[in-house]
């Protein structure tokens, strides 16, 4: 991933998207890259996985080489209008921001382009970050986000917003600079949704999918359940583990090749989870 400037992480809700995004950011910092972690949703868990309680709308240094922020719509919208669309400083933003809000409830791509715009703006500030890791929207919303620059171009035949959309689409589509990472589980719904998303992503050519990470994979016990006691907690835990492995094996067959992260037993908190996943990703 050395030349990459942007990694967007997505996946179905509850698969550990934020934990993996945090782990990828930690791995990048450990490799000596100046890294920015961005939460693209306001209710995400990226902050706690990075060991901070809250994230603000501006890059905040968490530790040497690692900064983080959370895209907040009002702040991102102001910044989008000022820095990207080029609304002069003296102009009052209020009315324009309201126009945007009105549009965002009906017109496609407007809401998403503000969020994507913040992420891509940070990527374009070439001298500041070596890598931006974005904890992206859930997989069901990733399409509308990736498509946003194109959607807006189609909707708005002329104007400054259209010009902005062009460079955004370029960065996303450049395989040397941008990649998407999917996180999934070896379970029915995530597996099916990931397979569907893979096809769509491949056809859309909006961004290169770098890999699919399967999270919380259990190792087979290696001995039959019957070698232990025939009842009690040992027996029940072995049965559960065995049954879960069997179920996972079924879905792993339908999961694209890629890194597999183990189920982390006894992790005490989100920050520990991310550190442990980063260790594992380093060794893969």
């Amino acid at each position: 991933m050395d030349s990459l400037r942007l990694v967007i992480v997505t996946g179905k809700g509850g698969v550990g998207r934020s934990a993996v995004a945090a782990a990828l950011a930690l791995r990048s910092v450990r490799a000596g890259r100046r890294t920015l972690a961005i939460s693209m949703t306001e209710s995400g868990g990226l902050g706690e996985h990075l060991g901070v309680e809250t994230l603000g709308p501006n890059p905040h240094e968490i530790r040497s080489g690692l900064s983080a922020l959370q895209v907040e719509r009002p702040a991102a919208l102001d910044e989008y209008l000022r820095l990207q669309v080029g609304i002069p400083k003296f102009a009052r933003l209020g009315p324009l921001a309201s126009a945007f809000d009105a549009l965002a409830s009906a017109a496609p791509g407007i809401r998403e382009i503000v969020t994507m715009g913040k992420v891509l703006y940070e990527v374009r500030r070439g001298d500041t970050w070596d890598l931006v890791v974005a904890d992206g929207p859930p997989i069901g919303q990733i399409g509308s986000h990736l498509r946003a620059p194109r959607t807006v171009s189609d909707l708005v035949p002329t104007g400054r917003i259209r010009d902005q959309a062009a460079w955004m689409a370029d960065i996303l589509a450049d395989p040397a600079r941008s990649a998407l990472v999917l996180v999934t589980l070896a379970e029915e719904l995530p597996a099916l949704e990931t397979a569907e998303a893979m096809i769509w992503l491949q056809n859309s050519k909006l961004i290169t999918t770098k890999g699919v990470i399967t999270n919380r994979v259990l190792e087979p016990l290696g001995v039959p359940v019957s070698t232990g006691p025939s009842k009690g907690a040992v027996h029940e835990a072995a049965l559960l583990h065995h049954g879960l492995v069997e179920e996972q094996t079924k879905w792993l067959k339908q999961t694209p090749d890629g890194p597999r992260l183990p189920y982390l037993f006894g992790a005490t908190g989100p920050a520990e989870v991310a550190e442990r996943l980063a260790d594992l990703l380093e060794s893969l």
Partner: protein
Amino acid sequence: MTRAILVTGAGGVGKTTLSAAIAVRAARSGKRTLALTVDPARRLADALGVGTLGAVPTANAQLELLWGAMLDAEHSWDAVARRHADPEVAERLVSSEFFRVAARHFPASQSYAAAERMADHLESGEWDVVVVDTPPAAGGIEFFTAPAETRDLVGGRLIRWITGGPLPGRRSLFRIAGRPALRMASAVLGSDLLERVAEFLFDLRTTHDSVSRRAAAIERHFRQASTLVVTTADPAPLREAERFFRELPKVASRPELVVFNRSLPDFWTTAPAPADTPPVLAENLRRWSSEATRQAAHRGEFAAHHKTVVATVPWQPESPTSLHALDELFTRAEGLDVLGF
């Protein structure tokens, strides 16, 4: 009166399965039951007998009194427009590019469409119990705020802003050129986008009175319903569950209980492995018991913090795919008896 049971929670925690299990149990106890589900996994849909269905309830072939239907939101949104607008306007609405987008994109629109369907079923008089597997869109809480947000969208708050005053009677009064802020917005957005959106919003505005009445009725249903919050003991779903307890009382009833799915037995936390246990299996218990301990701690914290009743559903390797397995899940759960089935 029809009793509504709303099953909420983050995506992926087993909400759909639990709603199905509750519906099966309700039907078994002699209630005419409708299971409304959003997006069931194929095998569960088959078990409920809704594999090939749309919005119309279909009887389950194996269990009398159990019916199933899908909440097909994208389709329902068309029905919403046709119900609340004049035929001519409705036609213009459903064929508008912005309407397609609003339907797919305005976060509350799918939820609102689903909520209208729910209300229709609750008012039909055909059911004793309607179990609703709430749509997971953007956290699930949107299902409950959707009536208010939809009222807002069609109620002309946006149009009032765009037109800069009380709602004009005729769309011809709408002039971008007359307002500096709009001129700037229009310059930035290019072309006539703002105008086209405004046209769309004008059409939508005509549905306001009708939508308002319906939204108020839906909100009454929400307040009278029993609400369950489903979660697992993992951080992301727990954050969602917290949000339901914090925010639901503002728009609906307070959740009656929180259901922890994928629960491990409490006794695993202290059960020792017998001396002659193979080391691999003893180690396996040790790891799972550390999970059981973590889960118990989360359940305890949640119950204390929100002063709520907790139910648990045991962790099963395979999700149930038959009526029998769904009923079994209800039986093996602890604490669901407060529902009274």
